[in-house]
């Protein structure tokens, strides 16, 4: 049985988000609601509703697998989406999970 989660981009800032257990869309994959693929329709329904509410763009299901301490995406493409760019970071650059655009903006 395959496990699935659902991802999308947030409309306002474009960041990749994941449907969380509590029904919110979080940038933190660790909060993801994970279901067996027979129940994926519930994720898709939540995605459609969030699209209709102008909250997210382009939701799609991703395959995940159980690993120690949680889940990880099966495909490396989605792992990069979850972890942020795999390249070495450089000053001023952060993984997108803690991305705070404008945080360094002058007052």
């Amino acid at each position, binding site marked *: 049985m395959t496990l699935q989660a659902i991802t999308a981009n947030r*409309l*306002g*800032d*474009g*960041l*990749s988000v994941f449907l969380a257990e509590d029904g919110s869309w979080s940038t933190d994959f660790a909060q993801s609601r994970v279901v067996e693929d027979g129940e994926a329709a519930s994720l898709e329904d939540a995605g459609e509703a969030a699209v209709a509410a102008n909250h997210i763009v382009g939701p799609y299901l991703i395959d995940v697998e159980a690993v120690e301490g949680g889940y990880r995406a099966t495909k*490396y493409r989605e792992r990069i989406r979850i972890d942020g760019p795999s390249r*070495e970071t450089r*000053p001023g650059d952060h993984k*997108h999970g803690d991305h705070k655009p404008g945080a360094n903006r002058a007052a």
Partner: protein
Amino acid sequence: MYQYDEFDHAHVRQRTEQFRGQVARRLSGELSEDEFRPLRLMNGVYLQLHAYMLRVAIPYGTLSAVQMRKLAHIARVYDKGYGHFTTRQNIQYNWPKLEELPDILGELAEVEMHAIQTSGNCIRNVTADQYAGAAADEIEDPRIWAEIIRQWSSLHPEFSFLPRKFKIAITGSPTDRAAVKVHDIGLRMHLNAAGDPGFEVLVGGGLGRTPMIAKTCRAWVSKHDLLAYLEAILRVYNLHGRRDNKYKARIKILVHELGIDEFRREVDEEFEHLRDGALVLPVEEVARIEKHFAPHPFETLPVKSDVLLSYRSVNFDFARWYAVNTFPHKADGYRIVNISLKPEGGVPGDATADQMDAIADIADRYSFSEICVAHEQNLVLAHVKQDDLFTLWQKLVELELATPNIRQITDIISCPGLDFCTLANARSIPVAQRISQRFSDLKRQWNVGDITLNISGCINACGHHHVGNIGILGVDRKGEEYYQITLGGRADENAQVGKIIGPAFPYDDVVDAIETVVETYLDARTEGETFLETYDRVGQEPFKEKLYATA
């Protein structure tokens, strides 16, 4: 450099305000994503793997120091403190928020910049030789005509919905640094038998899944006829280019399927209708644009600088940087400086906001406030006095912008790859970083010598892998990243597409494979032979043997 007139200003401001309204309607839900997508793409806004991406046009790669500071400001305030210079001589921001994009475009408009026609099936930013206006071997500054083409192609009503995107590149030198033969149209300035400058018009070049080298459509077209001739080509393409299949929609496929002779015949027929008509520019209009590109007020200086000579003799690092990163200038006593955006282990083409600001200051002080983006993802200060080179180099060293590796194996062209791009099948940047680290010993790099290494993360070939002396193409093989190696490509006036050497290598092995290719070359080369010369002489076999012997 060119400065906007009232029409340019009005047009860019109107577009910014129009987009502001479109974004507001998208955020409120009045526009769906399907409705909004074409509108945002017309303004250079993509939705990528992690976030929105904004591609800002830098016409023919030329920037003023003021514009560079604005790019730094945008990186710092609206993004994550860096930008990525591309093979199209543009800059991309990887993390802008949709909500803030109208403000970003407003900021760009203040310095005569925008993101119009950086996406979509229209005529894209015209690219040019990064040494334009400076190269010793140049006939004339090609940016005069690049600017004229920019104006002709901006919002051209007939060519806003072409079968596919359309890219034009132009060079004013016999040495092609602008890769004109792998563009939809390549323009190469040269003199005809009477000694008049005009353009060889090449057509149907391109990379992607069907790489092709452009063919000569007409050997010499006068400046007088240039726009009419270009319009004739675009008309033939617009009429006959395929719209049923995205992968066969580029002009290269049309030229290939019709044959260059039949294609030329149709262009000539169209050209006869157009020539000497509305597309002949008034002499005073050409003169107005020429004025913007008038040579800078260079000082009268001796050919050789004693200051330079003495520093070169006492400082080895400077001497190597001078030899590798600078280039002859048309004016005595001046030199073209390449700023490498390929530090050891760095992301090819990335510059931080602080670096951009510092480069702007350096350009103000040493190079007539002008900066050019090279399609190899480096920056150029085109007009530096030889006397100033040592001081300038010291500043670049402090900024980590003095890596002496132009056209060396770590001067890698790389697309963003799967780390950012939704189209990619594999990562490019970490492969470039690992190769850069593997060959970090500068003496080893210089021993390898003149070579180009290009990486693309998918067959769309944004990283120009087909025309790298060594090309690397990332592919997905059953959920694993694999890398196909091609050898023998080149993007210059003798452009050719590289050949695949054999089965692809997994991510963990590709850097070793590149090292094997380089070692094979070093073993096989004769005195003074470049990688390409050796490869052309010995062919694929020795490389195949070494790469796959133990496999």
